[in-house]
């Protein structure tokens, strides 16, 4: 039963969603969908608890066993506790809470993301070589797009931005369509397998 019950729930729910979505059952369809949407929202709020619980368990264990770099885990736990207390006391939109979010977390996040720019530059310099036809196409497209995305491209070679736009809208668009159609068919097939109980690895009992 432990294995079958989740599969039965998934099957019944999926069937119910499909019937209410694809068949016109009058106001019943609308009411059922709205109700299901509320259920999704409520249940996903509970799922949010799992994140902090797992985070604390993992980092507490790092600190307890003095694993390499355990100091970072200790810092994380202290910050987690302090910010949680502040958010509870001050409210999520309180002055102190917003200061933490905007002036500390936001800035750190932006700085880390900005640093990626430097790594991308260095990675491009070291790896973008005209080794073969494929690499050459990649490199030339990248250069055109880089020039096209900045005003200096048009200043050096007129109409570079138009060429960059053409690369984005025609060859790139064709490739992306193919990828998306393939991925969607794959997702559809995987969903059918889950609904029919052919794919059971998600129940934690093996496939």
């Amino acid at each position, binding site marked *: 039963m432990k294995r079958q019950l989740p599969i039965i729930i998934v099957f019944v729910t999926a069937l119910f969603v499909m019937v209410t979505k694809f068949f016109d059952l009058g106001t019943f369809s*609308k009411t059922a*969908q*709205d109700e*299901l*949407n*509320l259920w*999704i*929202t409520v249940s*996903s*709020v509970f799922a*949010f608890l799992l994140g902090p619980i797992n985070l604390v368990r993992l980092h507490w264990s790092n600190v307890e066993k003095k694993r390499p770099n355990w100091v970072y885990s200790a810092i994380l736990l202290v910050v987690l506790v302090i910010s949680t207390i502040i958010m509870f006391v001050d*409210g999520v*939109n309180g002055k102190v809470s*917003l200061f933490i*979010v*905007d002036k500390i*977390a*936001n*800035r750190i*996040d*932006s700085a*880390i*993301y900005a640093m990626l*720019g*430097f790594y991308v*530059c*260095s990675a*491009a*310099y*070291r790896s*973008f*070589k*005209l*080794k073969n036809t494929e690499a050459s196409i990649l*490199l030339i497209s*990248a*250069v055109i797009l*880089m*020039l096209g*995305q*900045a*005003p*200096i*491209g*048009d*200043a050096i070679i007129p109409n570079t*931005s*138009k060429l960059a*736009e053409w690369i*984005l*809208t025609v060859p*790139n*668009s064709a490739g*992306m*369509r193919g990828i*998306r159609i393939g991925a969607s068919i794959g997702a559809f097939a995987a969903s059918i397998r889950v609904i029919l109980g052919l794919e059971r690895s998600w129940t934690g009992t093996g496939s």
Partner: protein
Amino acid sequence: MNWQKLQWIDVRILYVIILLCLLIPMFKPIGLPVSISENTRKVFEAIESLPDGSVIWVSHDTGPGNAPELNPMISAVARQAFRKNCKIIATSFFNEMVGPALTQEYIESVAKEMGKEYGVDWINLGYRVNASPAILQLLIDDINKAMSGVDWKGEPLDKFPIMKEVKSIRNDVDLIFVTTVGTPGYGDWMTYVAEPLGKPLTGGASLTMYSGLQQYIRSGQLKGFLGGLRGAAEYEQLLKAPGKGLAGMDAQSLGHLTVIIFLILGNIGYFASRKKA
């Protein structure tokens, strides 16, 4: 000269040059002209073609990493909307931590400048968990229910005049403008809201996502889209209201040029080493 060495230049030199290229234009702008792409023009025209006083839904679905690219788009769309006396209903579904605060900051600054009042001309409804698909589908017919009856600061929606006029996306919203860095983003808005209701959908995306949405512009499902900081700069130019987008263009120009120069040097070194081998 030993040309091979060109492929092994110390990356720290590259880092310093890039840093200087990004910093110098901020203090001494070059002011290179920005040409307007077709996609940006479509975004501008989609909003411009709305009747005065229309309602625009602006969802700033961004996180802190991409915010510098996308924030100027929010200022620009707010400016264009307020110029036409359009009303703005704002949400932010990607990142609870920064999205609503950034939305507030960027729309509020334009609103104050243009004499628009919070709760009358615009409102920030903030973040709700699990926006896609649940909240998006609920918003279609009942905004109040979907947003639990409160704005981003927890103030009851009933007290704001704008929410007496705008009850549902289906009946009261004329255009949807979405910034995108992931999920939820333009794809979710397109699938669950814009397509079923036949509402025009436009917006802007980080440059990394921009290449993946071109097919939707070609199919007409997106009424143009702004691509990264460049898109924001073009939009500002069309509005004749220079902002952070245009300010960042010189830095982007020099940064890209530096990378291209280093790519050329690296390849010269590579071919020199191959020739020797």
